[in-house]
């Protein structure tokens, strides 16, 4: 039995006659973290949305644990936790109420203790747990969303610019959490333009440029990365 959990096969996605993704293929194995790097408009978010069943492939296929997403979106979503770049949880609800609401929406029931543990893991101050999210900073909202993702116990995580808005300490905490989840068997696909951050958490890094997967390599040890790689990832406009 293959350990392939996330798979894109010859994936192309057109939006209003414009080709956003161009025949990309990749796999993510169980317990692996793959970071897709690219500049604005490279197709990073489109890739994630296609895996979430929010966009349909024009050609090719995406599958999770061997199940085609376009034909079975409801089936595969049950195994997925998704963390958008700027998740807007409900402002009139507190962090705990938001978590309870979204857990219930996903069909999960967790105890107050579990929720407290998760909120502590993301280092959200306990004094704010019962405050409406409308008074939260972007970083605090993001921490709440990360706590929620952890509580989902999903074997597959899709992270869209997950550290956006977090302070350096929180980013460090987040990276540790991701590594911990991966070591426990979670399979993670994250898209980011934070090259250095990606090197800290990912096992492999894919380079997306103008909808094409132009490179795939193992993340360098110690998080050091060649400046040429950074240049390749973000120079799509100037090289055209």
């Amino acid at each position, binding site marked *: 039995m293959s350990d392939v959990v996330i798979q894109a096969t010859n994936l192309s996605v057109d939006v209003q006659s414009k080709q956003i993704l161009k025949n990309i293929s990749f796999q993510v194995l169980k317990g692996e973290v793959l970071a897709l790097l690219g500049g604005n408009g490279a197709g990073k978010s489109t890739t994630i949305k296609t895996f979430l*069943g929010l966009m349909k492939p024009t050609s090719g296929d995406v599958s999770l644990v061997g199940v085609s997403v376009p034909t079975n979106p*409801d089936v595969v*979503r049950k195994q997925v936790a998704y963390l*958008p770049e700027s998740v807007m*949880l409900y402002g009139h609800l507190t962090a705990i109420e938001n978590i309870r609401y979204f857990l*219930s*929406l996903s*069909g999960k029931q967790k105890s107050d203790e579990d929720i407290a543990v998760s909120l502590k893991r993301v280092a959200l101050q306990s004094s704010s747990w019962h405050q409406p999210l409308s008074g939260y900073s972007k970083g605090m909202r993001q921490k709440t969303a990360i706590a929620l993702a952890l509580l989902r116990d999903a074997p597959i995580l899709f992270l869209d610019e997950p550290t956006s808005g977090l302070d350096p300490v929180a980013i460090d905490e987040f990276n540790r959490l991701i590594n911990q989840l991966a070591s426990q068997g979670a399979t993670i696909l994250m898209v980011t333009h934070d090259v250095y951050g990606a090197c800290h958490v990912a096992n492999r890094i894919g380079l997306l440029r103008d909808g094409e997967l132009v490179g795939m390599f193992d993340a360098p040890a110690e998080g050091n990365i060649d400046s040429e790689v950074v240049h390749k990832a973000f120079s799509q406009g100037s090289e055209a």
Partner: protein
Amino acid sequence: MNFLDVRRETVFLLRKKSIALLLLAGFLLASFSVWTGSVDVAQQHQTIERLLVGDSVDREEVTHKHHDYGYIAYYTFHLTYAPPSPLAFAALGVRDIYPWKHRVRMLALEGQIHESDTPNPELALAGKIDFTFVIAVFSPLLLILLLHDLRASERAAGRHDFLVVTARTRNSLWPLRTAILMVALWLALIVPFLLGCAVNGVGIVDVFMISAIVLVYLLFWSVICYLVARLAFPAPVLASLLLGGWLLTTFIIPAVGDVVIEEAYHGPEGGNILMTQREAVNDAWDLPHQVTMDAFLETHPQWQGKTQTTSLFEWKWYFAFQQVGDEKALPLAIAYQQTAEDRYRAAGYIALLSPATLLKRALTHWAHTDAPAAWHYEQQVRAFHAELRQFYYPFLFNGTPYSEASLADRPVFTPYKNTER
């Protein structure tokens, strides 16, 4: 979808101030309409009670004052009425346009009935704010406000995709939210109605039927809102689309339909009937008695040989020309009624394009406050008036000596039971 889903979304949605305010507005509107409808119906009952008492007093006075069948027939008024059904408080219908009470005399009847014209009231929605009006006109508006931005607001807040991906099943999110808001609005509207039913003594079948009709109507609009809310447009665009549809079907189509029907179906006016009958009656004063009696005998051959008169004024001649006046106006009255029925039928076709009008027709039909109910009452009045003539004619044409005791057999109007439910 399970009970936990329903509880979660219900608690979540009802915590939103905008939703709570809209539901409160629906509840207050429905309460106001039920209250005004109940007051209106109570006033109709009071009017009937008052008129019944006055009618009885008048009749006694006439009986004591006159000792001649002709005078008594001439001066005695008889109250006819169609009491409001218990459900009328919720659907006042056309009772403010069509008469529901007449104090008739033995004189020519058609003029008494057609003192005023009745247009196409079922297409004139801007009337009293009764429960039917609140449901037909306001409830879609409230639903549109509740549902138009179901997804658009989440999209604008950047939550849409997150919600979709997180939801355990497709039905546990948007369809469930739509259903909960629809049921919440239905409850907000129907609770005042149920209280009104309890106060007005409405039967359980009527309560069930009206509640079900209202639910189906809200379901129809909810499906429309749900489908439109799926479109990936900003909330103001979606609201404009839905409000346009509401305006078109609720006001524009009935208004245009009214104009088209008025143009398509022509018939005599009530005033024509009144004038024809009055002219016939007035002309009779100048005609030889025998001319009137000959015309009368054509429809009442049983009085052959008993129509001769010996003085300038005799009651049998007077009431005979009243009868002849009615008969001259009868073709116009039939044409008038036929036109009204044709217009009503055509309005039914227009209603197929206007859910609000269709609902109004259904509720007023169920409450016996629609045009056919009014026509039925008219026929009751005609039948009662014919009974009066049948009662008095033998005394008048046979020259029976007056006996007050015989008046005990005089017909008394009995309102049709269906109007009382």
